[in-house]
């Protein structure tokens, strides 16, 4: 190598460059449109075709929806109004069926004068889930969440307040055994007792006790039978109970499937595979028909309760598999580090493993919940009046015979609002946890 490059290679900058703006066609909306919509002749063609499809759909849908008639007492009257306003043969929606029948779509055949009870129950429900969903809500509100199930049950079904109170007592008994008896008789025995004693109490003592208390001080609301409930009230009760109960059960099943203990492991695997391998509708028929043969005669096991149990077991099997995926994704070192610090199995699961595994599983869990919530419409096949079932019974009346789209659009929109908010919440939670943990 000669030294010819000496002048060109050696370089010392004497003035620093100022920052300049990028060229105009490289920023903002112009750049975005160029790159994403009109980047080549094929894309230009596809963009135009898509625009035409969007136009074609909206140009039919929007006039139909916007022309809609909101005040009419039956379908014939509604069609007359449309013909009068827009000329015969124009398509327009008869939203009047909603103004007329929305209480039914929401409450089913719940007594009109008692509508305040489910509404109040819904507000309490919102207050109860707030501290669970958002960590900014004061932690003391968790007491509301803990007591809410009993209050909600009492508000919706009515009857004596002593029933829920006697039921709470069962949990108190279990808790007392775990806290006070465990140090004396050992953890394993205490856990077994804390399950067996409350179960015995609920099955044998709870009923007579609440009856006795009710006969002394009544404290009761008018009872409403399950058969009267329908529409979104029913869908929400089944959906929310299923969601709340299936998460802990699913987590336990996932841990069971990972367990080294032979019987627990095989039981979890069998449970998950059997429940998952059979369609939900079969389980619902089992709940409505077969359980009656198996249960002792005379036991009146509420149909809705049976459905809730089946839906819970069904989605718990799915949750278990989703959570198992999260558990498997954690590096083995996390388990080892927790062990090496002397944390026992339950503590290491609760404090180290599950917080991380559940975080990974959030999208899958919420996915299962959304599926569960929409599957509540299947109960129509066993004679419960979910929103779809009610739409048929509304059509069965002479007033609204022939209305399809309006009811389905409304029901679809309501489900969409619920499911979309669940999906958004899941995104919010993921973002929040990502920010916290990195």
């Amino acid at each position: 190598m000669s030294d010819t490059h000496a002048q060109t290679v050696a370089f010392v900058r004497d003035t620093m460059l100022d920052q300049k703006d990028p060229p105009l066609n490289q920023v903002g909306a112009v750049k975005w449109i160029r790159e994403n919509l009109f980047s080549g002749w094929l894309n230009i063609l596809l963009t135009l075709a898509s625009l035409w499809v969007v136009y074609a759909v909206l140009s039919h849908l929007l006039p139909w929806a916007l022309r809609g008639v909101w005040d009419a007492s039956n379908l014939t009257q509604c069609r007359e109004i449309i013909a009068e306003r827009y000329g015969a043969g124009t398509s327009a929606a008869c939203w009047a069926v909603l103004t007329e029948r929305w209480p039914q779509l929401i409450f089913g055949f719940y007594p009109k004068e008692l509508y305040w009870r489910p509404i109040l129950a819904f507000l309490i429900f919102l207050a109860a889930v707030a501290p669970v969903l958002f960590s900014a809500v004061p932690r003391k509100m968790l007491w509301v969440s803990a007591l809410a199930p009993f209050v909600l049950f009492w508000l919706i079904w009515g009857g004596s307040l002593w029933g829920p109170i006697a039921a709470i007592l069962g949990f108190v008994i279990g808790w007392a055994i775990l806290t006070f008896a465990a140090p004396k008789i050992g953890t394993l025995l205490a856990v077994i007792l804390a399950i067996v004693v409350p179960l015995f109490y609920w099955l044998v003592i709870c009923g007579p006790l609440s009856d006795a208390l009710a006969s002394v001080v009544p404290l009761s609301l008018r009872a409403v039978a399950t058969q009267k409930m329908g529409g979104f009230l029913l869908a929400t009760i089944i959906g929310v109970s299923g969601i709340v109960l299936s998460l802990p059960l699913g987590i336990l099943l996932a841990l069971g499937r990972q367990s080294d203990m032979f019987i627990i492991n095989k039981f979890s695997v069998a449970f998950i595979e059997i429940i998952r391998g059979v369609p939900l509708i079969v389980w619902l028929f089992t709940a409505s028909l077969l359980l009656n043969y198996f249960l002792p005669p005379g036991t009146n096991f509420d149909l809705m309760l049976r459905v809730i149990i089946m839906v819970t077991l069904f989605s718990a099997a799915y949750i278990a598999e989703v959570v198992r995926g999260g558990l498997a994704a954690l590096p083995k070192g996390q388990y080892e580090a927790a062990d090496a610090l002397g944390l026992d199995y339950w503590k290491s699961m609760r404090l180290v493993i599950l917080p991380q595994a559940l975080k990974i599983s959030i999208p899958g869990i919420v996915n299962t919940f959304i599926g569960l919530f929409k599957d509540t419409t299947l109960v129509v096949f066993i004679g419960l009046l979910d929103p779809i079932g009610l739409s048929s019974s509304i059509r069965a009346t002479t007033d609204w015979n022939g209305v399809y789209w309006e009811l389905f659009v409304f029901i679809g929109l309501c489900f969409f609002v619920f499911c979309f908010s669940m999906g958004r919440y899941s995104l919010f939670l993921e973002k929040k946890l990502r920010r916290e943990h990195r």
Partner: protein
Amino acid sequence: MSELATREVDRSQMKVSDEVAIQITKMNKWYGTFHVLRDIDLTVYRGERIVIAGPSGSGKSTMIRCINRLEEHQAGSIVVDGIELSSDLKNIDKIRSEVGMCFQHFNLFPHLTILENCTLAPIWVRKIPKKQAEETAMHFLEKVKIPEQAHKYPGQLSGGQQQRVAIARSLCMKPRIMLFDEPTSALDPEMIKEVLDTMVELAEEGMTMLCVTHEMGFARQVANRVIFMDAGQIVEQNEPEEFFNNPRHERTKLFLSQILGH
């Protein structure tokens, strides 16, 4: 190989007592039919700093992982602090809370802050009040020279910092024995020194340490005994001076010539 301590190692507190900390007798372990550890006999006295070296697959990590039951041995006995390791869960948890361990990949809990990582076990295993546990944690974080990172998450720290947090996390349990499983193997050369410095300080305070490492500088300066393992057995053990200058077994000579040769 990294050069260690810029200062002289202070040996005044490094005293080996007659008290036995760990007694391993005729310990054997199999993975399936593969015989990983063969007739391991080892007595560790309180205050000893033992470095365990050997080629990969020689069973050195497996051996120290048996001491706190991350691995189960199938024959022979291990007695730690007078407690014999059996399948009794209570004994295992007791030993684990007395024996600290640092891993090659740190294994900090990524969903907890540094401070929470350090207070988790004291609060839930030792039942120490939160405030007191946090004070202890800050004390040890200062000792490993990263108190200012206490409220960050592990993912925001460098590898060396994470390993120092892992050491502090173990120390918060006030262990009587520390196990190190290749603590510097996953680190950049620049970060190895800061972790080794922390370990030297720990040794200077008289901690009983068992350390699987390839840092021969550390072994020379800090260890009172070097154990060389191959094919699941202890091949040679000696004082570091003798071990490095005058290895006796052919396998040891080969190993040393290979790692010190360049």
